[in-house]
């Protein structure tokens, strides 16, 4: 804090000036002591007078010396700058009651912290931008002026097109049936029934898959009003695990320019769950691990693994 205040003040000269003042004070007091003591006891009057005068002169000269020294130092010290570079916050620092209202020190700490935060956030955003998580076809780093005014085409698809794509995928696999509905606006909600194993609720945003929830075949997927329940989790741990895997899958299959290929790959991956309870783990050969069957399906080979067994 001290170096913030000493703008224009030479600290060393300041300290020296203070000691010079002390020296000056002591030499002046020596002068007066000498005067007070008077003449010393010597043999002749002349000797006494001479000794007194010499002593007096010595003291006056030391006063002179100290005064010159002080003047020299005071020129070096300089003036503290008149303007307050800290403006209002600098006025806070003049509050002497530090323990009751430590406003200025807290202010400084908050400032330093926010500076550090800004710096770290800058570093983090640089690192995160290297791994793009945007699944739409927006270009990164395009300035506001050059960004096209219209939204990217893959985000604004006509609902009829989405319906067509979904119905084509529905016909692809015999054991999987997809039912599309639009209860909340233009985003499609699919209810995928896979054999007699599970039901999946897929919430979409045009042709991009936003969220999935996997539930058992015998669980209720509708709310009390008869609408599709897109929020409540499954009651079974195995399907909660499969829901997590499905969310990983929808983030894995990304192709911003061709979202229908993405949906197709996701459905192919999902279809491998038809043998959820029948397939043993490819790595350990067993069916159960901590009470769960192999819930992970490899993204390329569609082989079954336990969550803890996957490479």
């Amino acid at each position, binding site marked *: 804090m001290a170096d913030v205040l000493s703008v224009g003040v030479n600290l060393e000269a300041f300290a020296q000036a203070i000691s010079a003042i002390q020296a000056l004070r002591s030499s002046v007091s020596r002068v007066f002591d000498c005067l007070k003591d008077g003449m010393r006891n010597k043999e002749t009057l002349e000797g006494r007078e001479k000794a007194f005068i010499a002593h007096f002169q010595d003291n006056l000269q030391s006063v002179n010396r100290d005064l010159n020294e002080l003047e020299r130092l005071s020129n070096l010290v300089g003036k503290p700058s008149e303007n307050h570079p800290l403006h209002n916050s600098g006025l806070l620092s003049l509050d002497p009651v530090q323990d009751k209202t430590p406003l200025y020190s807290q202010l400084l700490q908050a400032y330093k912290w926010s500076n550090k935060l800004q710096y770290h956030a800058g570093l983090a955003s640089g690192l995160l931008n290297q791994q793009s998580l945007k699944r739409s076809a927006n270009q990164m780093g395009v300035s506001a002026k050059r960004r096209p005014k219209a939204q990217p085409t893959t985000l604004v698809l006509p609902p009829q097109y989405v319906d067509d794509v979904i119905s084509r995928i529905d016909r692809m696999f015999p054991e999987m049936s997809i039912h599309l509905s639009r209860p909340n606006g233009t985003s499609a909600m699919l209810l995928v029934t896979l054999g007699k194993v599970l039901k999946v609720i897929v919430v979409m945003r045009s042709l991009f898959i936003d969220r999935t929830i996997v539930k*058992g075949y015998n669980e209720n997927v509708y709310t009390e009003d008869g609408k599709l329940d897109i929020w409540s989790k499954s009651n*079974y*741990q*195995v399907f909660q695990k499969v829901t997590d895997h499905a969310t990983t899958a929808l983030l894995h299959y990304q192709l911003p320019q061709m979202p229908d290929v993405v949906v197709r790959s996701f459905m192919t991956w999902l279809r491998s769950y038809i043998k959820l*309870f*029948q397939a043993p783990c490819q790595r350990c050969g067993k069916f159960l691990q901590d009470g769960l069957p192999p819930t992970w399906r490899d993204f390329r080979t569609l082989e079954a693994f336990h969550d803890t067994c996957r490479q």
Partner: protein
Amino acid sequence: MRPFLLEGGSVSQMPVAEGKSVQQTVELLTRKLEMLGAEKQGTFCVDCETYHTASSTLGSQGQAGKLMYVMHNSEYPLSCFALFENGPCLIADTNFDVLMVKLKGFFQSAKASKIETRGTRYQYCDFLVKVGTVTMGPSARGISVEVEYGPCVVPSDCWSLLLEFLQSFLGSHTPGAPAVFGNRHDAVYGPADTVVQYMELFNKIRKQQQVPVAGIR
């Protein structure tokens, strides 16, 4: 003593260790389950009463009366199950018991026929395990173990999975594949199937009535 195994799909027999009583075997099983990590979740009870068709309703041909079983399962507390040996199973609400009283002319209760199993329920991940002592009157006749795997509704799909789970806490006493699976491959499993298996189990135990009930073999 012979404990009996029954799960979401099968009924079979398994021998018990020498020198153990029913209670000790039950304790052994429950301790193994708890070591596996299962949590106790209350108790259960399945009981069965036998009725036979009253002689007055039998035709002049003298056909044998059919046996009807009326069962309750604490897993479905508001229901009552009525079934014939190889016939259909009716799921009704608990007023059915009162109805049986009114049908006294047609169905008569067999004497001392009430058999039941009581015990504790355990939950392990998605498995529901019920270990109970089968009693007929005051005497304990055997042990019933029921394992239910909730997420799967088609029993033939998850048999291997169930088998592996059973092996983990029953050791060498695991039963073979059940006969019930062969009939209906893809049919959805329901509470009636569980109750049918309990009925078969109770019948097996009843047939062993002649075996002297001894605490230690």
